[in-house]
């Protein structure tokens, strides 16, 4: 019985390592086709990249705005619940502003994008793999990473920071709605309080995290797509995994960065 347990651990480890080696090869090739390929005159699929930017970014604006608005409202109300006791309601502005720009704006946007775009990448590439389209590309001497992955990665990395800024704005607007609407705060006071509380590094750390989140979601989605095996069921399995793994890794990265930025701010 112990033998079987050891065998299982061994099998899982080996397959996990194979998975990671595929993923790192994917990242390697993507970097090649993003930077080295175009310089060597091997071409770049601009039209496809722009198309991806529209799909990933532009079409996500409504949902990101609404979600961020809702999150801003939630934060403001939860904060007010406690701060009211100390007669410190004006600090709702600080709390909403800082938590949205540093944390919730980037995180919520990344989670929405993992669900929208991460799964779309996996489903698209996975379906193409099942329909022999990826094989057809290879058989024609065309590199699937250049064709399929690079435009998507560029699209998501360019668009996510923009979406985060929109999320930041809408989140603070949500807080403002609550503050002026139900907490009876004055607009000018709320606005000034927010502006005074926020420092550039709050927004910047959010954007830097966003860049990393974009890379994580993009690569996880594409990697799962290429790993699809076995028809429609395989596509479904990998699409689900891309969302779950994407969100999991995003939150891990968030944890890492939060600790890092905190230590920096303490002057380590």
């Amino acid at each position: 019985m112990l033998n079987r347990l050891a065998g299982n651990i061994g099998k899982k480890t080996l397959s996990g390592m194979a998975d990671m080696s595929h993923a790192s090869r994917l990242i390697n090739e993507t970097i090649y086709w993003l930077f080295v390929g175009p310089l060597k005159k091997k071409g770049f699929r601009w039209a496809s990249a722009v198309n991806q930017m529209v799909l990933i970014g532009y079409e996500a604006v409504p949902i990101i705005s609404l979600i961020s608005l809702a999150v801003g409202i939630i934060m403001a109300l939860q904060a007010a619940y406690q701060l009211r006791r100390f007669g410190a309601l004006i600090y709702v502005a600080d709390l909403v502003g800082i938590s949205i720009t540093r944390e919730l704006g980037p995180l919520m946007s990344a989670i929405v994008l993992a669900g929208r775009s991460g799964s779309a990448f996996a489903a698209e590439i996975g379906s193409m793999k099942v329909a022999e389209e990826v094989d057809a590309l290879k058989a024609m001497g065309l590199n699937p990473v250049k064709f399929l992955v690079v435009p998507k990665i560029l699209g998501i990395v360019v668009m996510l920071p923009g979406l985060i800024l929109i999320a930041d704005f809408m989140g603070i607007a949500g807080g403002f709605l609550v503050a002026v609407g139900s907490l009876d705060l004055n607009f000018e006071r709320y606005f000034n309080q927010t502006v005074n509380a926020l420092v550039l590094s709050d927004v910047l750390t959010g954007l830097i995290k966003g860049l990393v989140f974009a890379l994580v979601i993009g690569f996880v989605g594409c990697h799962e797509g290429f790993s699809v095996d076995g028809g429609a069921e395989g596509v479904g399995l990998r699409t689900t995994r891309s969302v779950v793994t994407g969100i999991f890794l995003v939150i891990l990265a968030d944890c890492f960065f939060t600790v890092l930025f905190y230590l920096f701010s303490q002057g380590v």
Partner: protein
Amino acid sequence: MSDPIVQIIDLVSHYGDLKVLDGVSLEIPRGQITVIAGSSGCGKTTLLRHMIGLLKPKSGRILLRGEDIVAMSEKDLDRIRTRQGVLFQSGGLLNSMTLTDNVALPLREHTALEESTIQIMTRMKLELVGLLGFDSFLPSQISGGMKKRAGLARAISMDPEILYFDEPTAGLDPGTSAEMDELILKLKKTFRMTIVAVTHELPSIKSIADRVVMLDRGQVIFSGTLQEILVCENPQVRRFLDREPSHVVYDSETYLNAITGIEA
């Protein structure tokens, strides 16, 4: 045979633990149609995928014009792939692109030709397969037979020396199958292409093949001309040609063990 374009030497390949190709050796002569036949599961599609460079074998060599493609890097393989065309079973069209964009894709990526020239060449290839006028259709808007023909147009868009077919007439009605066979013969005659077709459809084999290689469970059981295989005495070959179902005869004890799940 003088100067074969492809030589396969002792190819051994596995899917996981299952041995799919067991020491396969054969030669593809230039300018002729070679059919790789066999019943389902004999390894013919796997063999084709090795020949196109999509799979690497456990051991063995594949010499294309004298160069061993098994040892080649992806970069070198890509250089070779511009001189070959492949028609996959489902057509292999990119579903997000129109027929014109599909057929023009190799030209746009591998050549520095003017767009107007590419358009003309694309229309020529579409006309050759009988799809002129369907330029701006998406693959989802055309029938299965038309998809195969569009895939063929794309496969020949770079005027390749060697053309590979994976089950060219699978899923086609008899009339359309005959049209596809005729198209394949036309390609060989007009363009002097070397053609390798994997198929198990007898009428097709009889109308297009110059040479036939038959596989069974990963091994070559026959290699010769069409005339030779039609008179071949080998029982496995005869069973394939005469459309005889195979009967597995169990003795009563083996049968009993098999159905009750008792391991003998």
